[in-house]
């Protein structure tokens, strides 16, 4: 059995060793009492959910304990009542980090108050937004923080069984979780009579099998129960009637990773970070055409500019920053002139995007916004479960329209048709996936309507990205190096050595190989028009 004394002695021996080693490697520095990662990239970050990532060894439970791990669980089980934990989380105003931002404490409270012989807590680790890998990092680098968060949730609501539903595309996360669960059981931190308090709690891993919609709560439960991941209509709250008809709470990975820290440091501390309505931090996966891609955890309310430019270093290769997409297929594209928007649930909602789970995809001048909308709709069409009419039929039609617009076959009225379909799909779909699927179209239409119009009326793609609408052309600056002619897969470039080369437009497949290999500097001789 695990005891406080044992944890204290682990901490005493191990922590100085780890810190010494990491300082020796020049990886970390001390910020007050905190051990934080060193470097420019981390200066503006405040790490709560990621606090142990790249610091502790995720395959060694003792290292987690050495960094205050499982102390929150110990204190709660020995000194606090379940209701106290619920109150603490309610007071912290922690909001779900999976996207919608529902107050976690209220969820817990619902389940806590509902009497039942069995209750479940599920960790939603089915992170599926393209361009997002926040949860993956936590699961791989600090799995115990999630286990401890779940145990605390279990104690709070009166559940003895947790499930982690993790997507199969994350084999490393699955492995690390398996190790972590095994070790936690061995150390008596999962299983029966934890800390000798009589509290039982265990966790089982369940794997997804490639269905984005299973990130939706009811679909996730259907999947665990062994059915097609089709969302259920919510007649009753999940906190009352959930998995196998029992009260269930579902929390996202990052949310759960916040819980032990909040319990350890108190809700006042937590509310001192971030904004009034969205306290704490948020982890973002800063990706796309950005100079320093990677995970960042920053206080809520930091502006997009600080995240993308101060931390991310702006657009890559000196290109012009154009937009950032937040919230994945449910979110929206935020144009450059709104770069000073603070990032929190309310502010992003006001500009038609959403916080989402934390994907932040940076786009530059060469990104076509119609094409991006098409990309997300394609995703939604592929991932629609097919149950409800608006999502199954409507997203398909929206995709078809976007597809023909990007092929230069758009017709008068297409924009209006997209708007009508968006309205019906978002207002009438069964689950969040359908209700938010039109968002990428709605926001790009709002901020980049002219790009749609250019495609439809002028048959041109302003970002020079849609193949059917562009032409490759060789300028007079051609030095006749013949590289383009050699690279052309359809041999449609002709020209003698040291003479101007010419592309036969009728044969060109617009693969861009000529452009890629052209060595002329600073401006390539191959141009795209």
């Amino acid at each position, binding site marked *: 059995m695990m005891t406080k004394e044992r944890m204290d002695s682990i901490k005493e021996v191990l922590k100085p060793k780890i810190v010494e080693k990491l300082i020796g490697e020049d990886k970390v520095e001390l910020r007050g009492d905190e051990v934080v990662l060193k470097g420019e990239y981390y200066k503006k970050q405040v790490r709560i959910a990621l606090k142990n990532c790249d610091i502790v060894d995720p395959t060694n439970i003792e290292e987690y304990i050495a960094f205050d791990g499982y102390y929150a669980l110990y204190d709660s089980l020995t000194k606090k009542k379940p209701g106290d934990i619920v109150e603490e989380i309610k007071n912290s105003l922690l909001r779900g980090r999976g996207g919608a931002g529902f107050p976690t404490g209220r969820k817990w409270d619902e389940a806590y108050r509902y009497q039942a012989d069995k209750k479940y807590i599920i960790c939603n680790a089915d992170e599926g937004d393209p361009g997002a890998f926040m949860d993956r990092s936590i699961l791989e680098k600090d799995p115990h923080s999630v286990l401890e968060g779940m145990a605390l949730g279990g104690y709070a609501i009166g559940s003895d069984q947790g499930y982690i539903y993790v997507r199969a595309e994350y084999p490393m996360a699955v492995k690390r979780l398996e190790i972590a669960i095994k070790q936690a059981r061995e150390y008596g931190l999962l299983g029966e009579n934890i800390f000798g308090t009589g509290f039982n709690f265990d966790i089982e891993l369940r794997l997804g099998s490639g*269905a984005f919609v299973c990130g939706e709560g009811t679909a996730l439960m259907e999947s665990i129960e062994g059915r*097609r991941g*089709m969302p*259920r*209509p*919510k*007649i009753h709250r999940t906190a009352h009637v959930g998995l196998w008809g029992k009260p269930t709470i579902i929390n996202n990975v990052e949310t759960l990773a916040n819980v032990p820290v909040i319990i350890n440091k108190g809700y006042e501390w937590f509310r001192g970070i971030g904004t009034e309505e969205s306290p704490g931090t948020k982890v973002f996966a800063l990706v796309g055409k950005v100079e320093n891609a990677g995970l960042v955890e920053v206080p809520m309310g930091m502006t997009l500019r600080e995240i993308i430019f101060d931390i991310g270093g702006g657009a890559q290769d000196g290109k012009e920053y154009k937009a950032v997409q937040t919230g994945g297929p449910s979110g929206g594209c935020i144009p450059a002139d709104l770069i000073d928007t603070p990032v929190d649930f309310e502010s992003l909602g006001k500009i038609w995007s959403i916080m989402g789970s934390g994907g932040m995809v940076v786009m530059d001048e060469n990104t076509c916004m119609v094409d991006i909308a098409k990309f997300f709709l394609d995703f939604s*069409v*592929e*991932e*629609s*479960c*097919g*149950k*409800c*009419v*608006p999502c*199954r*039929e*409507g997203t*398909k*039609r929206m995709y*078809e329209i976007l597809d023909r617009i990007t092929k230069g076959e758009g017709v008068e009225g297409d924009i209006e048709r997209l708007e*009508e*379909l968006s309205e*019906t799909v978002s*207002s*009438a*779909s*069964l689950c969040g996936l359908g209700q938010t699927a039109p968002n990428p179209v709605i926001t790009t239409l709002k901020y980049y309507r002219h790009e749609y119009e250019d495609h439809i009326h002028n048959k041109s793609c302003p970002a020079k990205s849609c193949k059917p609408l562009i032409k490759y052309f060789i300028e007079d600056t051609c030095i006749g190096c013949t590289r383009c002619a050699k690279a052309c897969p359809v041999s449609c470039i002709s020209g003698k050595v040291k003479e101007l080369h010419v592309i036969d437009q009728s044969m060109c497949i617009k693969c861009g190989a000529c452009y890629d290999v052209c060595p002329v500097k600073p401006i390539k001789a191959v141009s795209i028009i």
Partner: protein
Amino acid sequence: MSTVKLTIDGKVAEVSSELTVLQAARSIGIDIPALCYDETLEIFGACRMCIVEIEGSNKLQTSCSTLVKNGMIVHTETDRIKSTRKDIVQMLLDSHPNDCLTCQKSGECLLQDYAYRYDANFRNHHGAMRPQLMDTSSPYILRDNSKCILCGKCVLTCYQVSDRQVLSFSERGYDTKVVFGADQTIEESPCVSCNRCVAVCPVGALVDKRQLGKIRNWDGNTTVVMCKACEYGCEFEVYSRNKENIAVTAKAPSNGRPLCLKGRLATELKYLENPDKPYIKINERFEETTWDKALGITELIEKINRLEKDNKEEEE
């Protein structure tokens, strides 16, 4: 069980607190359209036709899956609702073949009814349509997946009988379809031709093949009869024209009545002058058979014949 009072389209309803808004509305004669709702089936929430507006919320809500609450004020036919319903029907029509003229279900098709009610029309477009996958393998059921609206009623009703459970959804998204067994033909699948699925199908995706081409819903009279084959007493409809009985079809199962092929054939035999030949499934093949074999009464008939013969001989 407590009761609550709510207002639906200006009418006051006093109903059990366990009812949904849709049930409450229907109880006071307000017909909220729904393609996937059926009071005998699990609430599915797929068609989204039953959306209503409830004061205090901006969101449209499906009345089939919203429980009534005291003081609720519900509107079921606002402009916003009508326009959304029209769009939903339109989406279904855009994937549906335009053949109401010859469709067996014409006249009793819910999709047709709602298209009329909300003024949605077939239209030409270059987008995808549901693929034509006609399954003609069964003499009892004709399946046309291109007409399927994926309301799920057939799957759910088949699932209710524990030793049947032959139907399921397969694939997902726009490719979703209803399959028999592991995507088999009706003949190869374990389907027992009870026609429960046909009886609940709101469109022409599953039709009674023995009725096909003979008579349609509006083209004659129907009488409801009770099957006498066993104590369940399932209901069938006898279709007639000019006093001649033309076809017998299963009525939707209710109150635990299971429906079965034997009962259907017995009812046909009883009411029809010239019923089609009976078929039974042997080793995943439908084979034409005799009525006594189809009804499983060969031995009984033989015995009756023998006894009658014996009686006659005794008399002589």
